């Protein structure tokens, strides 16, 4: 449990490196967690080979949702979009270095859900994207 608020998580929450918006961008998507009203927007720029060159997130939410968004942005830069489509729940948990119960898992996975909906060009983000 103490792990849940590991220093790295608090640090990413308080001083995120990738908070903001990209204008112009190639991909942009936003969604809410209806449970707590957390909101995350993800903006990406990609090069001609569909490799992510820049990534930013914006929004508000708990330490878990914001830290996982920041860690995810760090991770995706330099990766091809096809590889991002393969990311799942376990990848996020590995980035955070913690295990989570079902309720907080939704907070942690919100940014990935938004990212994948954007990458796939979907109309809305569904939980199935991150199962």
């Amino acid at each position, binding site marked *: *449990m103490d792990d849940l608020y590991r220093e790295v998580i*608090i640090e990413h929450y308080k001083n995120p490196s990738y908070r903001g918006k990209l204008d112009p961008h190639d991909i942009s998507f936003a969604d809410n967690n209806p*449970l*707590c*009203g*957390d909101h995350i927007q993800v903006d990406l720029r990609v090069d001609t080979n569909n490799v992510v060159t820049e990534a930013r997130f914006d929004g508000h939410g*708990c*330490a*878990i949702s914001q830290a996982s968004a920041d860690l995810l942005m760090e991770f995706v830069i330099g990766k091809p979009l096809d590889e991002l489509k393969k990311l799942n729940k376990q990848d996020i948990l590995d980035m955070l270095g913690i295990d989570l119960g079902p309720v907080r898992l939704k907070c942690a996975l919100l940014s990935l859900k938004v990212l994948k909906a954007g990458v796939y060009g979907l109309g809305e983000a569904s939980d199935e994207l991150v199962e």
Partner: protein
Amino acid sequence: MSLNIKEIRKDFPILERETRPGVRVTYLDSTATSQKPVQVIEAMNDYYRHSNANIHRGVHTLAEEATSMYEGAREKIAKFVNASSSREIIYTRNTTESINLVAYSWARANLKAGDLVILTEMEHHSNLVPWQMLQAERSIELDFISVTEDGLLDLETYKSLLSRRPKLVSFTHMSNVLGTINPAAEIIRLGHEVGAIVLVDGAQSVPHLSVDVQALDADFYAFSAHKMCGPTGIGALYGKSALLEAMPPFLGGGDMIKEVKLRSFRANSLPHKFEAGTPAIAEAIGFGAAVDYLSALGMDNVAAHEHEITEYALERLEEIPGVKLFGPSADKKGGVAAFTLEGVHPHDVAQILDRDGIAVRAGHHCAQPLHEKFGIPATSRASFYLYNTKEEVDLLVNGLYKVKEMFG
């Protein structure tokens, strides 16, 4: 008479539970659902062990026992809120279903396009969405009594809305976020003056205050068992018998009929007209036991104890730098303390408190528009009931200092 909280706590076995080794639960989430005393658990257990049978029409011993227990509970509930007859108490699943019953049966028979329904900005989603759904179907109009900065209903906006001759006024007696106890009798009286029917959401008031539906002159009054020491899955709608008599049935099926032919039916009399299908029998019996439990303690004593705890809690929470409380002062509210802690999301507050066994709720508490009004996505909410103590408030305060330290 002041309550003996030490003795009362012995009735609630769950309060002894450890949520992790050596950490006993501090339950501050009764506004979401209350804990249940052994008297309620035993009443339901006893029914299943000794008297289980389907109610009504059975002539065997078990069916007669089950029926008299089920109907006996209704009598107790009617007396508890001072309905003039138990025919005016309809069993539902919960407050939400009670409000939906009015929206489906009364409102669809009585409201037409352009008719105005007045709600308030502090409503729970359960008293917003059914009317929004009706609006989509019927093009009724909705308008809202506004909430002031200190969490009270602005009765001036209400009075000006009344000049538009609403057909229905529906409001919460006590806010589940701000804790505000609204002046129900006055709101009802003013509504009646312009000929409106008035529905009261009593989900938070009936568990915590002495409620007299006749003295209030409410037309409909909705409440749930699970917030008042009873089980989930059962609630009640009080309605004046003249209104209920004139309303069409809600759900169709067994038990709500007098006579059925292949192409027609005649509806049963009150209250059965609104109770289709086998109901939650054990839960109704548990509801009755909960009412017995609260009646024995006395609702005025329950309210006085909660007031004392709430006053103390607000005072202690205010001392914490960075804590912002929502809602009116202790004299105008029930046992609810919704707050934010600067720099920390309510979810994180709740999660860190849980480590010390402290159960509070975080989120918009099914009142998203109210949170929007105050410009915040979410709050943490501690709520108090008859079994809570000042020592538990101290645990909460110490816990919040720990949260601050972590995010410091």
